């Protein structure tokens, strides 16, 4: 019954042999993402750029072109209208107006007045003034940088510095790639999507730590094993778990993407992309990066003295035979 039995414990994938290919791919991903952000730019939501977003449900299906030209004749700068989920639901996007917070309110009132006879329900109004928009941007960047640093410091404390550096590189890779994904798809980048990016950082590191944990475990147990061989074994031992967890997480996220409603669409798509990229980077980037350093150098210094204590107890000593 349990299909898992068919999945071998050790798939024997030689990850480390392909590490150069992985590094090239990852570099390309990062460069492409940065280029996309620089050239195409992110489609910032009102949270970060300031301005107003109004979601309306109209009495009947409106002709978008006519509505667009009507609103744009108000002299409030370019106003975009797009369908949102279904024909009667429209998103009206109002740019930040020149001047202070008061001018924004005047503009919202003008747009509402123009729309009023067509609107059945104002489903959502989000207005972020210039001041708060700026603050949200700063705290967003701060939250991202601090999360990455916080995670890196935790890894440094729990593991060695090499692990921490590799994790930080892999995490930055994931964050940049996810942001690049938003630049590519032009899905709105707002507070919720930023949350998605940070969650990806959390998910990806979760994956990475599980493998790191195994690497550390093996470093302690097999003092003589060649380093790349050791890394490959750690990757393969945890591979089934890495895949299974990605699958269950993706299953839940696909359900969210398909049925979670229009508002969560951008968030769930980013999460799906992030889980894929995070899983890839744990396998193809974080662990192969470790191979560029000598993991045993620092290990030897401080582990030699209490080797006996960290050495596995009785039941563990049988294991090397099985693997040898």
């Amino acid at each position: 019954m349990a299909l898992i039995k068919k999945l071998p414990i050790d798939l024997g994938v030689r990850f480390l042999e392909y590490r150069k290919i992985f590094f090239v791919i990852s570099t390309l991903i990062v460069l492409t993402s940065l280029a996309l952000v620089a050239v195409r730019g992110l489609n910032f939501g009102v949270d970060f750029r300031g301005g107003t977003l109004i979601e309306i449900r109209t009495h009947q299906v409106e002709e978008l072109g006519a509505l667009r030209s009507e609103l744009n004749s108000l002299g409030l700068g370019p106003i975009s209208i797009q369908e949102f989920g279904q024909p009667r639901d429209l998103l009206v996007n109002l740019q930040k107006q020149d001047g202070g917070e008061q001018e924004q309110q005047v503009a919202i009132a003008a747009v509402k007045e123009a729309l009023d006879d067509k609107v059945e329900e104002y489903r959502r109004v989000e207005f972020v003034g210039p001041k708060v928009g700026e603050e949200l941007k700063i705290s967003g960047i701060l939250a991202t940088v601090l999360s990455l640093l916080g995670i890196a410091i935790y890894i440094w404390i729990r593991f060695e510095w090499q692990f921490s550096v590799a994790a930080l590189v892999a995490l930055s890779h994931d964050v940049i790639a996810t942001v690049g994904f938003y630049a590519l798809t032009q899905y709105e980048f707002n507070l919720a999507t930023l949350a998605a990016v940070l969650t990806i950082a959390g998910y990806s590191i979760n994956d990475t730590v599980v493998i790191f944990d195994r690497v550390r475990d093996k470093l302690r147990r097999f003092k003589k094993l060649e380093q790349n061989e050791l890394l490959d074994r750690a990757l393969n031992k945890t591979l089934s778990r890495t895949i299974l967890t990605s699958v269950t997480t993706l299953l839940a996220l696909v359900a969210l993407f398909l049925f979670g409603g229009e508002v969560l669409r951008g968030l769930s798509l980013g999460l799906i992309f992030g889980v894929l990229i995070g899983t890839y980077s744990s396998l193809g980037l974080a662990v192969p990066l470790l191979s560029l350093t000598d993991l045993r150098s620092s290990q030897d210094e401080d582990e030699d003295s209490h080797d006996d204590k960290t050495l596995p107890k009785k039941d563990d000593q049988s294991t090397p035979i099985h693997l040898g």
Partner: protein
Amino acid sequence: MLQFPRWKIFLVLAVLLAGLAFASPNLLPKSVTDNLPDWAPSNQVNLGLDLQGGASLLMEVDLAFAADERVKNVLEFIRDNLRSARIGYQNLSVSEGSVVFDLRNPDDATRERMRAIISQLSQGLLISTDEARVTVSFSEASTVEWRSRLVEQSIEITRARLDETGTKEPSIQRQGEDRILIQVPGEKDPDRIKQIIGKTAKLNFRMVDQSADPNALRAPADAEILLSNNPENPQRYVIKKRILVSGENLSDAQATFQDGQPVVSITFDATGGKRFADATLANVGRPFAIVLDGKVISAPVIRSAILSGSAIISGGFTVEEAGDLAILLRAGALPAPLIVLEERSVGPGLGADSVLAGQIAAALGLALVIVFMAVAYGSFGLMANAALVSNLILIFAALSALQATLTLPGIAGIVLTIGMAVDANVLIFERIREEVRQGQSLTAAIDNGYKRAVTTILDSNITTLIAAFLLFQFGTGPIKGFAVTLTIGLLTSMFTAIMLTRLIVILWLRRNRSKALPI
């Protein structure tokens, strides 16, 4: 080896039962939970404004505007009082937040008198002199206190106004130094709230300066040019700066009708009534102006002294305008204008749609994961699924008990947790499989599998918790909700994986005495 002390079994069961108890009110209709006995948990999950619909407004108290007025008041005080004390001065003006002027006769005696007069206004004034020049400014301490009091007052008046309009359950909180967050669940029309708190509603009665020409560019020093209230064709008035009676001296205001026109009838308190009587008595036959927020509402001629302590304000109002004005006057004037910094409102339709979509997505995600785990792991998958369902129950129990707010991104957090929660179990199961392959007995493998997996689970979850914690710190409203459910989900999933599935696995092992691992 497979010890699972009795007390631990009871602990796990107790946590699960408590979880059920705290989560169950969410399945009952509100009418039932309201009537539960006190000892029974009756809190339902608190839905955020984006799910139940409602309006959230972040306002800023315009301190710069108020500071401006504060200095001007000092200037007016100095003008009036130095003149009446016959102290000569010139070049009276405001410069960089201070009032400056030059004494015509800067000897010590005059300075002393000047100081005595100005310090009457407020203890917090700093008066410095340099030759003839006098600089009057506010001390740092008094400014700090003034700002704080101003924001407190603004909150009180905002609350009073919203109460007057019958807004239900508004939450009004101070944020930072000069901000006020107003949240009104279920409010369909945020514009209405903006109308109610968008006006400072400073009302005062002043004389019209008949000697000056309203069309002149400048008004006399003790007067100012104000416009009438009708925006299409504003009329110019020259109004004396001295205030006869202000809105602070009102005891009541009601919207009513006079000759079929909507008007607001006001009643003065004792002080206001006396001042109004004196002023009208002294100025019969002359026009006075009713000024609201710097606009002249009307400027009737005083026909006779008004001693009754009440008056009628008419100004071509609509019924709604008269009603609103009465509310504003009853609640009192805001000490400074409020500026909308951020507004988020969600209609009840979208809120309900979001809840439904979230429920469907969560149910489907749950179903997919459960089927997948059952197919992949067979009987062990069923154990993981039991843990997954308990995990969800515990999440809802924690949300209800802590009265944390569930937002739309929070629902996304729960769905994500459903996917990630089985991770801990997968980690343990895979480790057990590995141990068995290495030739260990089933019991030893399970024991070791758990022992080894636990540190990994802790390490990997703590890193995710770090990200969630920072999200909570830096995020606003809905994002905080996401961080909360993610955090709760991580904690409960650690509990269910380490404690609950372990218990189930051990019970299974004891019962079956099997030698072979089914996975």
